[in-house]
């Protein structure tokens, strides 16, 4: 068939499709309700057929370029991502995320060791030799910590600011740290190891120093509740980073490219879960942990409850549905 005849036969169909596609770009909802949108998948496949014919018959660029452009536009519409659904998010948080954490337990255990060992060692060293605090922190930092956890402070854990301000600060700061821990794992895992270790030394150092000078009470009362979410999330984000770095070093029986894509997919889900945990942690830290007037029993009781909740969720969450869904 000659080109002119081919164009004359199909040009109306192409024009229709083109105008529908440009209407879709302007008013997506309204256009999708039109009757024509029901016909779109088959119209698109006919268009692909026309392009293949035009290519095979060596038609001029005038025709093939136009069809190619239309096909490319149509491809984006036909294969667009599905609309997000809330129940997918909920299922992920309740069941999918703990399952993912358990399936990546090696990396996460390694991250936990890299974080808790430096923390506990620093804590023990600070208790045994309190003067070491001055080698880890500057005196301005020490003064700041001491002011925050002074037993006479009505709002423990902060030197100034309201609950809302601190919530914003905790989200910005802690989630940023978790995301960076994950991402810097791509540098052969070195970044994640560094961030985990440095935070371990920092947190262990503060805890040890404050306990050594007798401010341990307010400090532990402050951190016991939100640390369940905060430290677990940091360790999980670190584990995701380690996984990324390990995949780069030892991709196993895969090429590095596909192996990295798979690790990135898992890592992003872990990072998103850690993000959700850190939002909860920031909320607890800003609105609950800072209340100084509660008794020790309430403080430590709620802390223990939250720790059991987090660990139980990560340990058992989604287990019943592991074969279904």
């Amino acid at each position, binding site marked *: 068939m000659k080109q002119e005849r081919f164009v004359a036969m199909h040009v109306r169909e192409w024009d229709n499709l083109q105008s529908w596609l440009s209407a879709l770009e302007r008013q997506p909802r309204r256009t999708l309700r039109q009757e024509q949108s029901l016909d779109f998948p088959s119209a698109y496949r006919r268009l692909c057929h026309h392009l293949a014919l035009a290519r095979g018959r060596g038609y001029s660029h005038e025709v093939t370029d136009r069809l190619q452009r239309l096909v490319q536009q149509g491809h984006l519409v036909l294969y667009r991502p599905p609309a997000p659904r809330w129940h997918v998010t909920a299922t992920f948080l309740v069941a999918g995320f703990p399952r993912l954490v358990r399936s990546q337990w090696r990396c996460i255990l390694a991250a936990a060791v890299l974080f808790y060992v430096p923390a506990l060692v620093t804590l023990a060293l600070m208790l045994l030799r309190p003067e070491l605090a001055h080698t880890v922190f500057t005196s301005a930092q020490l003064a700041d910590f001491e002011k925050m956890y002074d037993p006479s402070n009505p709002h423990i854990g902060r030197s100034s600011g309201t609950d809302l301000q601190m919530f914003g600060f905790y989200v910005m700061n802690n989630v940023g740290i978790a995301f960076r821990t994950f*991402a810097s794992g791509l540098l052969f895992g070195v970044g994640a190891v560094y961030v985990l270790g440095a935070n371990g030394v920092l947190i262990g150092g503060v805890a040890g120093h404050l306990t050594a000078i007798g401010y341990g009470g307010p400090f532990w009362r402050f951190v016991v509740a939100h640390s369940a979410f905060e430290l677990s999330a940091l360790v999980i984000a670190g584990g995701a980073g380690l996984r990324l770095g390990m995949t780069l070093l030892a991709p196993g029986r895969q090429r590095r490219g596909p192996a990295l894509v798979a690790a990135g997919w898992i890592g992003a889900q872990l990072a998103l879960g850690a993000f959700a945990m850190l939002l909860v942690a920031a909320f607890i830290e800003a609105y609950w942990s800072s209340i100084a007037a509660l008794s020790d029993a309430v403080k430590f009781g709620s802390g223990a409850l939250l720790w059991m909740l987090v660990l139980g969720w990560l340990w058992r969450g989604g287990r019943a549905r592991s074969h279904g869904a």
Partner: protein
Amino acid sequence: MIDTIREIETPEGISLRLRAAGALPRAQAWTLDMLVRLLVLFIAAIPLSLFGVGGNGLVLLLTFALMWAYPVFCEVWWHGQTPGKRALGLRVVNADGTPVTWLPSVVRNLLRVVDILPGVYGVGLVSTLVDPYARRLGDIVAGTLVIHASELPAGEQMPAMDAIALPVVLAVDEQAALVEFAERAGQLTLQRQEELANLLTPLTGLRDTAAIRRLVAQANWLLGRA
């Protein structure tokens, strides 16, 4: 490395041609996005400052959202385009040419942390220069690609002329070459057109301008014009 076009075969058996975008337009898009974000933050900070100290918390939350969530939400909701990318005619797509989805977008934007590392996008720049499709590390791990979404300018149309039948039957690729010559002749100098047309003297039996006219007429016949 010079040819940045990535051909992807779709389930329909058609190949999509994706034109990978290099470092320069992407840097421009990023700069624009940065300006947009700073502007939003600046404008929002004015009413938020009325809330006093608590307003600071809201400003911090907004900063967080602009820093981490803005690129992800823009890319997923606006078919792979942040405002900066839209202005530059760029688009983020998955490796199979479909619009970018949530997880790949999260990965590529979180891994900016690595790409941005020494100074301003040092790692990312090296990666875009080395990779055949100009992907930065975040794109490689996410399995995404930044492409030029704007359309290429349409080529010249073939000048219409009274059709003259070809004296012999040409193979399909020979026909295509003849049609392309007729389409592109307008972009060439007259001397170059004559030089090319004279190669086909055995077919046309003519030389120079007459040969050009004859070839265009025959191309018109190939397309089936009267």
